[in-house]
């Protein structure tokens, strides 16, 4: 029994220690909520490093409001409930002023109630499915209309695709995105039977049947294109099977929304050459700012072979906008910073200027790239800045909704009944 008591005493003591940590005005604390272990670690660790680099650079440049910045890094270990716990810890124990974090939509949904309850501020850097608007979250990644819709337009207009295979991993982002795309394609005059939808589990490897099904789609003489929201490792098997079936990107082009430089860096890309990806940023973008960013990154990480990718740019823009907003507001207080965020401008790494809109989404250009042998992308199309849309226009329930936190003070405003559906976001 004594042993047990000592354990209890020990845990209480630990708790007491963590509980007494005091908040101070200086340094300004920046929370970093990215998984450093577990399945998402490979993607998210890079973002943690990016944040540390950005904080270090900002401190070199004199910090913010005369204070140094301090990055508080926690590890939610790819465990969704743990994200909520760690977010609470960041906000209540470490008293951070802003959080940069999350990758998967599930983890974001897990964190939302905590952030909203404690009035925190989260910058979310990854492309996502939209259909959400939180007062406390700034979405610096692409909404569907900044990635999926332009890519589909490209398929329709530039490649003349008439029949679509929407292949995705079975989770929320592909589900919602494919739902939006189905609705959008039907609006564009593609018949329902010309859209083939398939979901596979994470890490799926047996692609022969699905690839055969996709090939068979061409039987009615229409050009087939694949829109892939397949996530992570499963892509390897998919592209391998596609290549084994002798299908080139000329026959059946594939555009992927979850395959970027980081994902390609570990792969043998010979099977993938010519296939497409749509992002708001490619490492191959030819601008001075991008060159500088890549050089800084290589210097910080100490490895010239490391690549940069789209979510990194999203953090870069998000962080700099936050710094500017804090300078403008003269305080790190969340409400003041949020007001100062609207209309913030910051140059993109790919050229042009990103603008923060009142729906907490950015205006960013959409880029489409063809995969090259060396794992980089050849940018073959770049649009003007597209404002991100929290609620898609292509689903009937969402088309009537707008998000405007500045004037309407509501993230889910029904323009038909002219009422605010809810202040908190849905999770």
């Amino acid at each position: 029994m004594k042993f047990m008591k000592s354990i209890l005493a020990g845990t209480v003591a630990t708790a007491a220690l963590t509980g007494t940590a005091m908040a101070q005005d200086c340094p300004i604390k920046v929370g970093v909520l990215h998984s450093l272990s577990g399945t998402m670690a490979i993607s998210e660790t890079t973002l943690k490093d990016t944040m540390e680099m950005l904080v270090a650079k900002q401190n070199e440049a004199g910090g913010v409001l005369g204070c140094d910045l301090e990055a508080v890094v926690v590890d939610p270990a790819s465990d969704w409930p743990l994200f909520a716990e760690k977010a609470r810890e960041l906000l209540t124990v470490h008293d951070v002023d802003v959080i940069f974090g999350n990758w998967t939509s599930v983890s974001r949904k897990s964190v939302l109630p905590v952030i909203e309850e404690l009035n925190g501020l989260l910058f979310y850097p990854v492309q996502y499915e939209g259909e959400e608007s939180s007062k406390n979250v700034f979405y610096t990644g692409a909404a569907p209309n900044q990635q999926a819709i332009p890519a589909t337009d490209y398929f329709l207009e530039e490649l003349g695709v008439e029949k679509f295979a929407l292949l995705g991993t079975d989770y929320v982002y592909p589900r919602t995105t494919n739902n939006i795309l189905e609705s959008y394609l039907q609006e564009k005059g593609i018949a329902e039977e010309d859209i083939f939808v398939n979901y596979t589990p994470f890490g799926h490897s047996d692609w022969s049947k699905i690839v055969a099904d996709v090939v068979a789609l061409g039987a009615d003489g229409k050009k087939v294109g694949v829109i892939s929201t397949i996530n992570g490792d499963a892509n390897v098997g998919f592209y391998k099977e596609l290549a084994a079936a002798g299908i080139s990107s000329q026959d059946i082009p594939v555009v992927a929304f979850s395959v970027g430089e980081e994902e390609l860096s570990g792969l043998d890309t010979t099977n993938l050459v010519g296939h497409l990806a749509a992002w708001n940023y490619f490492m191959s973008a030819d601008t001075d700012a991008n060159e500088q960013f890549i050089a800084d990154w290589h210097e910080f990480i100490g490895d010239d072979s490391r690549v940069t990718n789209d979510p990194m740019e999203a953090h870069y823009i998000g962080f700099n906008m936050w710094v500017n907003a804090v300078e403008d507001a003269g305080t790190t207080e969340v409400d003041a910073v949020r007001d100062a965020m609207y209309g913030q401008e910051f140059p993109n790494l790919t050229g042009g200027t990103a603008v923060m809109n009142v729906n907490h989404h950015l205006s960013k250009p959409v880029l489409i790239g063809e995969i090259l042998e060396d794992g980089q992308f050849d940018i073959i199309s770049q649009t003007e800045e597209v404002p991100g849309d929290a609620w898609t226009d292509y689903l009937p329930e969402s088309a009537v909704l707008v998000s405007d936190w500045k004037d309407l003070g509501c993230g889910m405003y029904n323009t038909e009944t002219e009422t605010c559906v809810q202040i908190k976001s849905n999770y």
Partner: protein
Amino acid sequence: MNRSFIGRNPSILIFLLVLAIFTIGVTFMSEAFGAGMISTSFVKTLGKTLCLALVAVAMDLIWGYAGILSLGHFAFFGLGGYMIGMWLMYERTREIVESSMMEAPIPPTEQEIVDGIGNQIFGVVGSSEFPAVWAFADSLVLQLALVVLVPGLLAFVFGWLAFRSRVTGVYLSILTQAMTLALSLYLFQNDSGLRGNNGLSGLQNLPGLDDVSQDYVSMWFFWGSALALALGYVFAAWIVSGKFGSVIRGIRDNEARVRFLGYSVEGYKLFLFTVTAMIAGIAGALYYPQAGIINPAEIAPIASIYLAVWVAIGGRGRLYGAVIGAVFVSLVSTYFTGGQAPDINLGFYTIQWVDWWTILLGLSFVLVTLFAPQGIGGLFDLVSGRHHPDRHGADLGPDHGSLREEEAEE
């Protein structure tokens, strides 16, 4: 048989006393009711740990006492969470939808409200219709009943099928693991109607209690978990103390002999399997509102194996062993994977605990199995002077590690 139930099991009193002291201690150090030395997020962690201890007690009953290594009890735990999560989610969304629709010029019809709720809940997975499994989601009483009924029913059907065809030992373990895998894969599908990979979220916000801060809500759940653990522990101790307990231990040690003595082995096993599944369901229903989100990854087979690991490290065949194992391993895991443990610099290589903790856990588990089959609980035997019966020849039962208290006292 003239001594009272408590009298025969002094460990129950000690356990309850420790639990009470712990609960009161945490209460006085919490942000809501005391000095604020323990942050709300840590209160939640402690509350969740108590729930894990409860499911570990259930696991100990079925494995430590009946010798059935079930790799499915975390699935029952998750099902309980899903059942309560459905009501929490439905009710909270209903409040939001109703209040917003009431502001419209024309009051909503019931159908419109239901559609609105459906749209809110399933909009995330690109649907808006209520699947059939949500039929009772509007009633707290029914969903609370389902917390025990659904895991209980699944366990009953599965157990009936499995025990009846005399599937035992490792075969049963593999079969329960397959069941867990099938259930988690099923829940991963959006067609299952429980929001697929997204799961149910926002569960920490209790409907109608928007004004109450999480500081208080977390304490309520902490008390609830402590109470459930106390009741569960006493119930489990009561079950294993009487004749019933002797029979199931008999089944563990030699199933055929018990059957030849005329006992309905299948009946005993089925009863225990179902009851422990229900306890696991209750534990899950208390756990997930504290965690805030439940999704199918929680149910994956690995979680159930970890449950077995806790019980094994804590010590099988003794209820407090299960509690100690669950509390100790899950808190230590939190400490190491939380990045709080300092890295060890060996000069040529820096050991980061985030990376190496799992390896340490896996290896320590092998060592416990090989060298200390009685787990941490075995330490109490050293204190109390009990010792394992010194048997000659082969092991009597499949479970060498579990202590037979009766024999030890003789």
